[in-house]
Structures are given as structure tokens and as C-alpha cells.
């Protein structure tokens, strides 16, 4: 009888690193698979070797970033670390990876999916013009490369990240042309008591806004983005203020983001049920407070299962690892687990306040103009989606995908999915969640055919 295979962790962001740390402390040697060349995830992404800016790029989060990096570096000899490796498929007990264009497979018993988040987009007319970046992408450019995406960058969308990245651009010496937040100030103000639970995080947020105002950055709240102007490159952003007045700013880059969404494809392939998060208006993989799922041996941690931020992800990672150990009949420190759960519950309440303070603008998404592209991989515009809904009776999102090609391309609906369901639901007069979730289909990231050939050559 062979020993149980080592646990596998997918993702080396804050959740994955903390999970690895707990498992190593229990004497296990987990396999840690990560797409990036270095640990830290997107939030604490590391600059390439030789870059000199150091932890300053993380601003107020520098201490946390450094702690995560140091923790991981101290573990590297005690884990089986596989960076630059993409998991493209998951079957019961089996993972399929590709690294440097070569396919590989591995068997697993227990797995912690700490797959992180990605940007949410609401398609503003002109959003595919060169010079438009996802907000997270604009931040990565700054953190990993020390680059701003434009000489004059306008920020549009909603959510705490909008203000954070604008602030970071300002601090890094960039020019912030404008911050256009679709959420009115009053909506945020109503959540004051809930937001206070965030403590230092909330105070930092206020500081970012205050700094941007002090530096004279043009700020508008409760605005509706009208269009991104440009042909070969972005030249301006236009919006309509809450008062009805038109606003406009010249810029050569636009960073656009409406919060984050979980990267739940692997959990979906693992057979974990998806559940609708009404606060965030997004589907997420179902798990209990410790990260256990209904599928034996599959644990979820961090933003990959529910968007709650990096601090929550660290706790999730540890809790999922403890749950995995407890299920293997390893004794876990009950008091520490209880303390983690308490801290996590506090962060959950803060997150709920944040979700209410910066709601995903579902009505804006649902009102996407007929001729605006929704699915850029397959070039499907909102009008075609509405036609699929009305004329072809696509009352389920996978049905709409089959009829209209929405979400059928390279990104598999990871970008357009949450918008497509809002458009379809409005067109059909149905609740959004009644349309269901887009099913994950392998490969969850594009798989080069050469990778399949190279496997044969081995």
C-alpha cells in the first residue's frame, strides 16, 4: 500500500502560500503549482530579478507583501514548487498541466484550489481600443514592471481597487487624468458603519481618496461612462455626471474595472457546485467557512472561491489547510483555528459592506448598447445577445452561448460572462441567477497543440 500522494495547492498567492505554510508545518511536502514565475499572486506580484523598486511598490501593503514573500521563500526547500505551470484540466484525482509548452499530468489525493481573481468589466463603447487596460492589469504593470500604462491615465469603474490603483499611479509619478466612479457618494456613505469594521484598510481607503482630491485629480462619483474615444489609440474618456452634465477628459490610457470575480473554473471542473452571490452578482464555488467543498478532498481558499481580499485569502489558505489536515485525522490547533474563523468572519462583514458601498452596476451592464461589443473573443455585441434571448429563446446562459457564441472563445466567458447574464436577464425579464452559470470547459486556459505533440516526444 503506497502512501497518500502529497497534497496539491494550485496558486501561490496569499491563500496558497499560507496553505503551504500550514501543511509544511504539519510535516507534509505539498506540490505548489503556480502560473506565475514567482510567488505572491497578483496582489503581491514580484518584480522580475534585477528590478530595484523593492517593497515600495506595494505601498501601505508592503509589510504584508514582504511577509508573504519571506514565508514562501522559507518554504521553497520543503515543498515541490512548480512555477510557470498552468493547470488546463482537472479530473477526479488527476491534474493536467502545461509548462514551457510541454504537457504533464499528476495524481492528487487532496487539493487546495487558491486560484485567485480577475477583473470584472462592463463594456463601455470603445473598450477594445488600444490603450484600454483592465484595472488589475494597470496595477500589475506598475507592480511588476514599474510602468504606468499611459502618460495620462483615466480610471473608470467602481470598487476600492479603482481608488487604490489611481492613488498608486499618482504616488509612482504618473498623471491621473480622472477617476470616474459609477457609484454615487451617498451609496458609499450609507455603508459607513459597516466599512468602519475594516479598520486600517478603511482608513487607508479614505487616505487614497483624500490624496487624489488634494492633488487636484478630477473626480466624479455616480457617473455613467459614455464612451472611450479614439481610433488607433485612446484619446479621451467621456461620461455623464449624476447631474446630467457631460464630462470629458483627454487621456492616452484608460484603466477600467468594476470589482473582481473568482477564477472558479477548476472548482467547477472538480464538480463543486456553483452558487449565486447576490451581493457581488457573480457565481462562486460553494464551500463551508473552512474551505471544504461537497467534493471529497477538494478545498477552496481565497478570492478564487469568494472575493474577500488578500487578508481574507491568507486566513482562508490556513483554514483550508487545517481542514485538509483534520480530514486526514491530523490534530490541528483548535484555538488557532477558532481565532482564524473569528477574524475571517469580521472580514466577511467588512466585505459585505464594501459590496454594498461599491455595488456592481448591473443596470449599467444590462443597458449595454446594442452595437457595443460584449464578447471580444468571438465579436458578439449586446444586440446579438438580445436577439438570441428574444428570437431564439435562450433562457439559459449556456444555451445563449451555443446560439450566439458569447463566451465561446479564448477566454471562455471569463471576461464577458457576468455582463452577458445581466444583458440576457434584462432582455428576458428574468432574475439574473435564473440563467445559470457558464459551465467551465477544459482547457480552462488555451492549450498549444505543440504541447500535446511534445508530450509524445518524451
Amino acid at each position: 500500500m503506497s502512501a497518500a500522494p502529497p497534497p496539491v495547492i494550485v496558486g501561490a498567492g496569499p491563500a496558497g502560500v499560507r496553505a503551504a505554510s500550514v501543511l509544511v508545518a504539519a510535516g507534509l511536502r505539498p506540490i505548489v503549482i503556480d502560473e506565475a514565475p514567482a510567488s505572491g499572486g497578483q496582489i503581491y506580484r514580484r518584480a522580475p530579478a534585477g528590478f530595484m523598486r523593492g517593497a515600495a511598490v506595494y505601498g501601505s501593503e508592503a509589510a504584508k507583501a514582504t511577509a508573504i514573500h519571506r514565508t514562501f521563500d522559507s518554504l521553497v526547500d520543503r515543498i515541490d514548487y512548480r512555477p510557470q505551470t498552468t493547470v488546463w484540466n482537472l479530473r477526479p484525482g488527476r491534474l493536467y498541466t502545461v509548462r514551457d509548452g510541454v504537457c504533464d499530468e499528476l495524481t492528487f489525493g487532496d487539493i487546495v484550489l487558491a486560484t485567485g481573481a480577475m477583473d470584472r468589466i462592463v463594456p463601455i463603447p470603445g473598450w477594445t481600443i488600444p490603450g484600454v487596460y483592465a484595472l488589475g492589469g494597470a496595477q500589475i504593470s506598475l507592480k511588476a514592471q514599474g510602468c504606468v500604462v499611459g502618460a495620462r491615465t483615466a480610471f473608470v469603474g467602481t470598487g476600492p481597487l479603482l481608488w487604490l490603483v489611481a492613488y498608486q499611479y499618482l504616488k509612482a509619478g504618473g498623471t491621473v487624468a480622472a477617476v470616474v466612479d459609477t457609484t454615487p457618494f451617498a451609496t458609499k456613505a450609507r455603508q459607513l458603519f459597516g466599512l468602519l469594521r475594516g479598520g486600517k484598510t478603511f482608513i487607508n481607503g479614505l487616505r487614497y481618496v483624500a490624496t487624489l482630491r488634494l492633488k487636484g485629480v478630477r473626480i466624479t462619483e455616480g457617473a455613467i461612462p459614455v464612451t472611450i474615444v479614439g481610433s488607433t489609440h485612446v484619446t479621451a474618456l467621456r461620461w455623464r455626471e449624476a447631474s446630467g452634465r457631460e464630462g470629458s477628459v483627454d487621456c492616452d490610457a484608460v484603466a477600467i474595472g468594476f470589482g473582481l470575480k473568482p477564477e472558479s473554473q477548476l472548482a467547477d471542473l472538480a464538480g463543486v457546485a456553483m452558487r449565486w452571490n447576490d451581493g457581488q452578482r457573480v457565481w462562486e464555488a460553494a464551500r463551508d467557512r473552512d474551505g471544504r467543498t461537497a467534493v471529497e478532498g477538494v478545498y477552496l481558499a481565497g478570492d478564487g472561491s469568494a472575493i474577500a481580499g488578500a487578508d481574507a485569502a491568507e486566513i482562508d489558505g490556513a483554514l483550508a489547510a487545517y481542514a485538509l489536515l483534520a480530514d486526514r485525522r491530523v490534530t490541528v490547533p483548535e484555538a488557532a483555528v477558532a481565532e482564524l474563523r473569528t477574524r475571517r468572519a469580521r472580514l466577511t462583514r467588512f466585505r459585505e459592506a464594501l459590496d454594498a458601498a461599491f455595488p456592481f452596476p448591473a443596470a449599467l451592464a444590462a443597458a449595454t448598447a446594442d452595437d457595443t461589443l460584449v464578447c471580444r473573443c468571438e465579436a458578439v455585441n449586446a444586440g446579438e445577445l438580445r436577439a438570441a434571448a428574444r428570437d431564439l429563446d435562450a433562457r439559459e446562459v449556456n444555451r445563449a452561448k451555443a446560439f450566439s457564441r458569447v463566451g465561446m472563445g479564448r477566454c471562455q466567458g471569463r471576461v464577458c460572462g457576468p455582463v452577458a447574464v445581466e444583458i440576457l436577464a434584462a432582455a428576458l425579464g428574468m432574475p439574473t441567477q435564473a440563467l445559470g452559470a457558464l459551465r467551465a470547459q477544459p482547457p480552462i486556459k488555451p492549450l498549444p497543440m505543440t504541447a500535446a505533440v511534445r508530450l509524445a516526444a518524451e
Partner: protein
Amino acid sequence: MSTTTTDVAIIGGGGAGCATALHLAWRKARCVLLERGFVGGQASGVNYGGVRQQGRDPAELPIARRAREIWGRLPELIGTDCEFSVSGHLKLARDHAEEAELVAYAETAREYGIELRVIGRNAIRAEYPWLSDQVVAGSFCADDGQANPRLLCPALARAARRAGADIRENARVSDIARDGDGFVIRTADGNEVRSSILVNAAGAWGGEISARFGEPVPIETIAPNMAVTEPIPYFIKPNLGVCGGNVYCRQIPRGNVILGGGRGEADAVAMRARALPEITLAALRRAVALVPRLASATIIRTWTGIEGYLPDDIPVVGPSRTTPGLFHAFGFSGHGFAIGPAIGAIMSELVLDGRSTTPIGALTIDRFGGCDKVGELPDRARSRNH
């Protein structure tokens, strides 16, 4: 809770069932189609999308010809072409035995009025310079083509509805009973359909229904393993197949290459099918070996759906031998998408006229001698292993 009385009840909303409803409705017969999920949700909607006559079993060729004629007239018949294009079908031989097989088949096809052009090694190199040296010969059917499988069944169902058919999705049949000379079909949502005729078009699940009426067949559940690339420059004009069938691919003008080969995982009870990564990778390797230029492409999606296969790879089409008023059209063994449009015409003739104008004699249900296991089969009902 409602009871509907109708002339014909059809179980199964795949290509065969939807086309049958359409043809019946055109001829003013009342019909109710019951589909447990969405129409075209399984094999008919998620297959490769080939529309070919070449390579069909001679027993199926007359049906394939009739289907091809209907495919060409879809716009006038149902208002949409389902992206059908007459791209031709090129079947490739990778050794001399396979080449001999192509030559022999071309003779057979000619007897059925289907012209195939056998292409030798030098000519195929000149005509299709992107094929690898693996290919020694080919056989081209100019009249064959390809279409978008996602669109056919919903389009047939919409046309059937417009013509007066009652098409019910999410209507899972929970019980079928004989009532005098007719049938009573109950669905899980509590509704009841009473009919004098029952058409079993339940695909991979058709064997359950036939067994219920004392006619078991050795049906096997199969999931064809499919994959698609992101768009690349358009260069593969014909629909490509090989002798033995272990890889097949086609490219659509927008650039995506759709390819298949091998079988995924199918669970007919759980209604779940998954493409298998090992099978996908093997198919990719075979495709690159056939068309080396595909090596630079990237796979963006894999999928599969549940199909019913019979041991001789041809369907059951015809009247029940045990039960007057019951007709079968199931177990299309991977051919249902291409020939489905003709099945509607044939079934409507069987039901309303008592005979089909297209020969279907080889597709009778009693060819299996009431066996439900391959091991007990009479010889003539075993696979030709094409």
C-alpha cells in the same frame, strides 16, 4: 397538471425527434414532442458537424442522400441554413490497404448515385499541399459538407412550433403505458400526453424504451471527444476524415478548426459526458501528424455529448415488431446529425402512410434478435469495424 390528447407523441428532442415533429406538423398531424432537457442538448447538438454521404454504410446511403437534399434546402424549409456549407468531404488513406478501401467504396457509392473522386498520391500532394507525407491517397465527395450542430435542432424545433407542433423542453418522461390501442406518457412535471402513435427518438436512451416494449437492443453509450482551436488563417476547405476514423477535422471560414477522434466519458444515467484529456491529446497528435500546420494552433475548448451506438454502427429506424403504433428512430451511432433531417421525412411517412419512400429495410429493430448484449448477437448484426 394537464392532459393533452394528440395523434403522435415523440420522445426525444434530438435531430430525429425534432425533424419528425416538423414533418408531421407540415402534414397537419397533431404531435407533442417531449424533451427532458433542451432540444439538441446531447449528440445532435454537440457533435462534430459533418454532413457527409461518403463512407456511410450502404444501408444508410439512400437516407444520407435524402438528408443531403434537405440540407441544401434548409433556408427555404426552416428559414435558416444552420451554417451548412458544401465544402466537400475528403477521406484520407494512410496506407495502401486503406487506399484499396477507398477505391472499393467509390464503386459501391456509384451504385447509389454518389460520385466520389479517388485522388492518388501525387495529385493529392498537388491539390492539398498542407497534408503530411502520411497521406497516400484520398477520396473526395464534392457534394458533402459541414454545418453548425448547435443550431440545427433548435431551428427544426422552432420551425415545427411555427407549423403547429407542441414542442416541450424540460419535460422528462417518467412513465409510458399502453392504453387500449394508444399510449399514455407521463412527465415528471405531472403532465400527461395521450396519443395513438408513439415515436421513440430517444437517442442513447432509445433502448430503454424499446426494451419496455419487449424489444431490447444492444445499445452502447458513447461520447465523441471534440476540440476546437482559436481562429487561424483559413486553409482547410474540405471536411477531413480518415479511414478507420480515429481523427477528423474541419475548418470554418472564420478560422476555427474543429477536430475530434476517440471517445470521452459518458454516463447515460447521470446524463453527464466529459471530454477526456488523454483522448484529446491523442487526437491533437493525430491531427498534427495529418496536417502539420496545425501544430501552431491553440485549443480553446473541448466538449462531448451522449450518443447511442449500435453494434453494426447503423440506427434502428422503423416500426416496432411487438407494439402496433410504436415507431423507433434511435441509436444513430454518430450519424444522427447528418441524416437526422431525412429521418423526419421518413418517420412522417411511416406514421401517416404506413411506408417510407426511402428504403429502410436494413435498419429494422429485429436484426438484433431481441438480444440486449453484443455477445449474443446474430452475425449480421455485428460491427463491420469500418
